[in-house]
């Protein structure tokens, strides 16, 4: 999901930075001081979990988990995703400072959309509805994120079409895996710690 530095065109970078800034500002405004440790640790946990490599056939993919983060955090997903990208940006230089805004948007916007689309369904007591919504939440988050990455590339120049298509196609298996993982994860949370899905992290 990371685009390297120096690839994207200036307008794309600027719009990304502006949207990222706005989203983060909304998220921070909705975040109470008391919730800071919780949100920070959930971000850290999803960062650690994103190092898990899940096998698919002979290859393996790593998890992204922006869908489940979005359902729990709502708009606060923006600052949460930003801080989990930040160490990568400054320490690993996977997408450094200039693309930070774009990458944050690419991952956090689908998370927030997922929150509005699926959070009611996921919290439903009916196992089928909840299961379907959790699967879709994970699936759609990756679908939208990969489309967003592809969109950024295509907006930079027509010559990126081929690459953009490849990125979306390559993420299709990831979509299914994230769907299953989100499904299992929500079932686990509902059984073990139902409060986690009921806590309101963001002020309305």
């Amino acid at each position: 999901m990371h685009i390297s530095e120096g690839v994207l065109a200036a307008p794309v970078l600027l719009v990304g930075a502006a949207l990222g800034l706005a989203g983060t500002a909304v998220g921070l405004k909705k975040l109470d001081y008391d919730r800071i440790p919780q949100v920070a640790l959930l971000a850290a946990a999803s960062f650690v979990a994103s190092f898990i490599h899940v096998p698919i056939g002979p290859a393996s993919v790593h998890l992204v988990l922006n869908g489940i983060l979005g359902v729990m955090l709502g708009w606060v997903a923006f600052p949460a995703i930003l801080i989990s990208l930040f160490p990568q940006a400054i320490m690993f230089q996977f997408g450094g400072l200039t693309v930070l805004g774009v990458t944050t948007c690419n991952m956090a916007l689908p998370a927030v959309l997922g929150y509005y689309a699926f959070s009611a369904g996921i919290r439903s007591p009916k196992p089928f509805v909840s299961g379907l919504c959790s699967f879709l939440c994970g699936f759609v988050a990756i679908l939208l994120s990969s489309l967003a990455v592809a969109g950024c590339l295509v907006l930079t120049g027509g010559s990126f079409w081929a690459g953009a298509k490849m990125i979306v196609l390559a993420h299709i298996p990831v979509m299914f895996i994230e769907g299953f993982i989100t499904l299992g994860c929500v079932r686990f949370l509902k059984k073990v710690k139902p409060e986690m899905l009921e806590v309101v992290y963001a002020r309305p």
Partner: protein
Amino acid sequence: MKLEEFATGNSFIHHLDPRGKVVAAAFFSGLVSLTQSLTAALAALVLPVILVALARLDFKRLMTRLAVVNGFILFTWFFIPFTFPGRVIYSIGPLDIHWEGVLYACLLTVKSNAIILALIALLGTSPVLDVVHALSHLGVPDKLVHLFFFCFRYLHTIREEYHKLSEALKVRSFRPGTNLHTYRTYAYLVGMLLVRSFHRSQRILEALKCRGFSGRFYILHHYQMKRRDYLFTSCGLVLPCLLVFIL
């Protein structure tokens, strides 16, 4: 996951005020990412190379890092030379390689590596928390800084928990494969990590309350901008401009 791989060192770059370095790094990456000329990009590449040399970073580790982060750039080489319109210089079967495409791919490669090197030389040479501390001085909101601070502090702890869990999976002879059992197991692993982090965050909040936390952190180490920091930062602002605009 090697965080802060380049942060320990004794060069003068390591001792500069992180605020100056953040400003210079942000300015340099912004400027370079905007340039469209290959000569300007090449000229700009000179600066970070000098910085890396001054910082006396371990060459082998630096190359390993560059190889890893150039994955995306390598990916662009697979299609840009073919899809960027221009003069055909060579054909492989049905595919034509265009001269302008090659130049464009070169431009992306040079720009990308110039920025990566500058970030490694400037931000990588300070501990992460110092960089964040610098950011808080440069106007990044407190809440964001606190979020980052807790996230970073517990990254190690959560990673250890993850290792313990995956060892527990291993000793019970779990073999990952492409099947539902694997996905369910990983889902539970992720869920368990989230639950444990949630529990821990509640106890941290309690610890904060026990010690009279009132929403404010006090900083005991203070950096001071010295003459060399002002000098360095001004050079960091002026030199890239000269290189990029003159060429």
